């Protein structure tokens, strides 16, 4: 009896130790981080709009210059209420005191300056595919935005999602690396690689347009990449944007470009839902960037 109790205790301790080791937050190697203050704010603006940072970090319904006030907002999901934090340059409430290493680790490893895991509602499994130069440029741009003094409330999730350390297990399985998701076919236009970078990296399009494994708990299902998914905000579907019959296979590259610029589909239906903000962000990119995104979307495997 006593031996059995000891055996159980040993197993529990061993399991706890294993969980602890497996879930240690891992930071970027120093070589993967750009030099302090090496970013260019002008170039960073492009990354800011490609990434749609304002869609989660500015107040809901913000218009015009208010979209540059990144005081954070709540994000209601089936897991509970996440808080997209204040990322304005306010030194107290925002990230004004952060250094480039803090920012890069948050963006590309999901680890905050205190060494805690960030929840993957923040799509660092997309941002991991970005170059360190773009991370530095974005950081430089964010520093030019107005400071907001609103403090970020705590994220409130139910058990077991409230165990932050558990995010470490998720990362082991789904964080991925800088390798592109899609191998472009030999005949793809030269611009498709640039589009792939924008879509798979900063644009994080797959976070909504790709279904997740494990009933939404897992990672992005690379086998159904951009093939459409349940709407995380409730009723409806996020559309399939691959060149399939049930996707946008009937759209030409020019029509995709027009949609991203104006919000009109080829038959003059219009953009709706949370894609409205995304489209308005895409409209701020250059024509060349939108054309690159279209070239990539025409080159990904069709998902039916």
């Amino acid at each position, binding site marked *: 009896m006593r031996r059995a109790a000891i055996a159980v205790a040993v197993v529990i301790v061993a399991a706890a130790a294993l969980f602890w080791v497996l879930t240690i937050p891992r930071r970027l190697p120093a070589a993967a981080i750009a030099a302090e203050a090496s970013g260019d704010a002008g170039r960073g603006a492009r990354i800011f709009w490609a990434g749609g940072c304002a869609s989660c970090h500015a107040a809901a319904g913000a218009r015009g210059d208010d979209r540059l006030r990144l005081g954070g907002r709540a994000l209601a999901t089936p897991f509970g209420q996440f808080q997209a934090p204040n990322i304005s340059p306010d030194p107290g409430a925002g990230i004004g005191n952060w250094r480039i290493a803090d920012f890069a680790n948050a963006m590309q490893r999901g680890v905050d300056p205190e060494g805690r895991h960030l929840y993957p509602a923040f799509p660092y499994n997309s941002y991991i595919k970005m170059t360190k130069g773009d991370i530095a440029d974005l950081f430089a741009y964010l520093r030019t935005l107005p400071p907001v003094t609103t403090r970020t409330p705590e994220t409130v999730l139910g058990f077991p999602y409230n165990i932050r350390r558990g995010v470490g297990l998720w990362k082991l399985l789904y964080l991925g690396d800088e390798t592109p998701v899609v191998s472009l076919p030999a005949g793809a236009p030269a611009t498709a690689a640039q589009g792939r970078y924008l879509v798979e990296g900063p644009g994080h399009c797959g976070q909504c347009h790709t279904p997740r494994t494990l009933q939404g708990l897992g990672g992005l299902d690379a086998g159904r990449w951009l093939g*459409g998914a349940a*709407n995380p905000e*409730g*009723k*409806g*579907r*996020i*559309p*399939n944007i691959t060149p399939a019959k*049930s996707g946008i296979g009937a759209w030409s590259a020019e029509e995709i470009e027009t949609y991203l610029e104006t*919000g*009109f589909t080829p*038959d*003059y*239906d*219009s*953009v*709706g*839902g*949370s894609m*409205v*903000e995304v*489209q308005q962000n895409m409209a701020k990119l250059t024509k060349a960037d939108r054309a690159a995104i279209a070239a990539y979307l025409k080159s990904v495997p069709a998902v039916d």
Partner: protein
Amino acid sequence: MRMTQLLIAAATVAGAAVPAIAADPIAERQAIMKQNGKDTKALVGYMKGETPYDAAAVTALFTSMNNGAKAFGSKFPPTSKTGGKTEAAPAIWEKPADFKAAVAKFQTDTGAAAAARPASLDAMKPLFGAVTANCKSCHETFRVKEQ
């Protein structure tokens, strides 16, 4: 000129035919939206200079959209929340005052564009912008894609 008459006739017939053909509010509102898409597509032809500017035809298109806008608000009874492949968002019934205001804005903007009878492409451009801004501003809250 023949083209103009044809367009006016087409827009009028389509506008008049909408309530007659469709027996249920979901089909009726979908038909109105389809017509909005067709009218917008025709207007874009003028905006891009692909269709030679024709004041009467442009006015007819704005009028067609205004007719649809006037009929649209009554096509959302509480019995029509689901079915018929509707993409109407629950917000239509959860925030009825906001929805009413959005429909009223579309009526106002299309009505103003039609009443202005824009004589030139330059006169049409801001009207087109004001009218079509309604598409995404309303769809952002009140429409959810189903596929």
